[in-house]
């Protein structure tokens, strides 16, 4: 279906280079997965309570009750699972969004998903007196969904939704929602409080039940995102050429947006808004993989999870025994990396 598949490669030298390149990419992905494993172990092993690795292992495998089991099984394991899922989702959503909008600076928040989720959570706290993070999840997902639909309808207008129109609509909707959030929060100190702690973006108090609630959404989102690589490659050629090659642009764009909403809405519901991961991860990854979305997507997923989990572990260590929120650390370590990449490399074009 895609041009890449139809492209006849005849030159043996070129074929060799392609094979070498493919094995380098596979090896890189294996290295990333190994790194992810290490970070996950660190995330289970490190925290405000000093527990020896042996104690942690014992509590993890055998339970045995007591303080160690409480901390390892009921706090660190759900937290690690949440970091893994949130990071993977944000990395994927960012890659998807950059490909869909053909904009290397696109961020999952560009289409109003974050603002929609935040606005719904604020209204739930202010008007429905919802105080439990477990219940925020549904409002965040609902808000993300409604905002996306609104952006899509506004961006479509007459004819198909073009990336530029979608981004403009997203910016407009985000501005409106941000105004609503401010209005509610500034006139209601309870909402102000609840929202303030939610909006920081933290994995600190994630419970297992919240993680379990969003797993189905994330699973669907991850599968759809990973399956869309070839279609996104076609899209990268531009609407006309891609259509000529048989790609159904409107459908790809629509499915892509639904997938982004699922991923971003669910991730935001769990941890609150964590910015920067969706922007910096696909960008960094692209410098290594090149423009092929079939590689960018899985790499972004794994590297996103590594970034979020590493940030969370660092956040637990720097102010020990107090903690720094993951979103703060993500921005602090993500920004210099991002600047370095932008300065040193020619930006990988989309």
């Amino acid at each position: 279906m895609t041009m890449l598949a139809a492209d006849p490669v005849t030159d043996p030298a070129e074929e060799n280079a392609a094979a070498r390149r493919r094995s380098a990419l596979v090896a890189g992905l294996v290295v990333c997965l190994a790194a992810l494993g290490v970070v996950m172990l660190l995330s289970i092993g490190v925290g405000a309570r000093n527990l020896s690795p042996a104690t942690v292992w014992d509590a993890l495998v055998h339970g045995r009750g007591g303080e160690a089991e409480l901390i390892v099984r009921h706090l660190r394991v759900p937290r690690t699972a949440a970091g893994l899922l949130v990071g993977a989702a944000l990395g994927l959503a960012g890659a998807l969004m950059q490909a869909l909008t053909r904009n290397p600076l696109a961020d999952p928040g560009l289409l109003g998903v974050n603002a929609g989720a935040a606005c719904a959570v604020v209204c739930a706290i202010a008007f429905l007196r919802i105080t439990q993070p477990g219940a925020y999840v549904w409002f965040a997902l609902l808000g993300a969904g409604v905002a996306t639909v609104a952006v899509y309808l506004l961006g479509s207008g007459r004819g198909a939704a073009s990336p530029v129109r979608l981004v403009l609509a997203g910016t407009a909707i985000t501005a409106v929602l941000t105004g609503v959030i401010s209005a509610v929060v500034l006139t209601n100190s309870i909402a102000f409080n609840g929202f303030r702690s939610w909006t920081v973006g933290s994995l600190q108090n994630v419970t297992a039940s919240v993680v379990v609630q969003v797993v189905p959404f994330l699973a669907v989102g991850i599968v759809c995102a990973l399956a869309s690589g070839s279609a996104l490659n076609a899209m990268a050629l531009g609407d006309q050429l891609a259509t000529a090659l048989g790609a159904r642009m409107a459908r790809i764009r629509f499915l892509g947006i639904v997938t982004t909403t699922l991923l971003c809405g669910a991730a935001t519901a769990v941890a609150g808004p964590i910015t920067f991961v969706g922007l910096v991860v696909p960008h960094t990854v692209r410098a290594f993989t090149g423009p092929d979305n079939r590689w960018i997507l899985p790499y972004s997923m794994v590297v996103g999870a590594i970034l979020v989990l590493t940030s969370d572990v660092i956040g637990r260590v720097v102010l020990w025994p107090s903690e720094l929120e993951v979103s703060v650390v993500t921005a602090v370590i993500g920004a210099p990396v991002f600047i370095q990449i932008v300065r040193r490399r020619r930006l990988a074009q989309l």
Partner: protein
Amino acid sequence: MTPPLPDQLRLGRRGLLSAMAGGAAAFAVQGCTNSALDDPSSTTSGSGASSGGASFPVTVEHRFGQTTIPAEPQRILALGQTDCDPLIALGITPIAIGSFAEKWYTPVHPWNEHGFGGAKPEEVSFVEIEFEKLAALQPDLITMVSGGISQGDYKTLSKIAPVVGPPKGYQDSAVPYGPHTVLIGQTVGREEEAKQIVADVDAKYDAVRQAHPEWDGLTTIHAESFTGAFDVLGRNAPRSTFLTSVGLALSPELDKLAGTQYSKEISAEQLDLVGDLDVVIWMTDPGAIADLQSNPVVSRLKVVEDGRSVWTTYVKTDEFMWSMDWNTVLSGPYAIDLGVPLLEDALAGKSPISAGND
């Protein structure tokens, strides 16, 4: 003498203001709860006002300097969150009182409602001060003794009427009832009467300690949980001083963590420091006590499993929480009446929930 979610609010809108205002005063003064009488930081000068009789003009000292009240005030605006209580204790009804001015909050409680004679008092916001509205009330004295305004707001308010700020050396929202009442007493020319009222309240706390010698040395803390995050109150927070005033001791480890901050966020992994105490007072959002009790971590803490916890929220009908939190000469005795049975029940393992949380 604090708002219910004081730490967050203080960090937020009010916080910037009070941080700037209180910058110089944001140091610790410890253990002053019951020692108003020998408090050296507030002094009265002026023409013989120290006799306790109303002889004006009176000059009082406070955080922002000196204020002279030319004649006995007739229209007092009690803007500080709990300033109405000492005034009512002295038999004075303020023309308007400070409030969050939002639906979830009320400044009128069983211990001070008699002061308003059944009428609903005029409430004015101390969160966002509406200067024009305050000027229209034509006060001849504005009190902000429990704290929470900036130097700039103090100056602006001073153009409306003489303003009395918090006593020197105390943090916002953590002025103990002694200095609080004595400064207000000086301001209205009734210092001796105010000192007597404070001594009576001191005696009530002494009586509790004498009645419960077994509480001496038991460890405690005030733990809060909002939207999934946990914090503990520092030693200067009024609800902490209530616990120490009845003879309990704050957890040394947690006291070290929180220090003189109003409250300190702690990681869920550190909750066993709370769990190992003798008795704990929990506070959470209205309607969320059951959620907190069934939290996977909280429910496994020893102090919760054994029922040695008292559960409160900031719902306006939770009079125990509010009376502790106001910690005035009027609310203190009320907090003793409600709190002593609750603490007794908790120490007997009954896991009591404060009344008003239905």
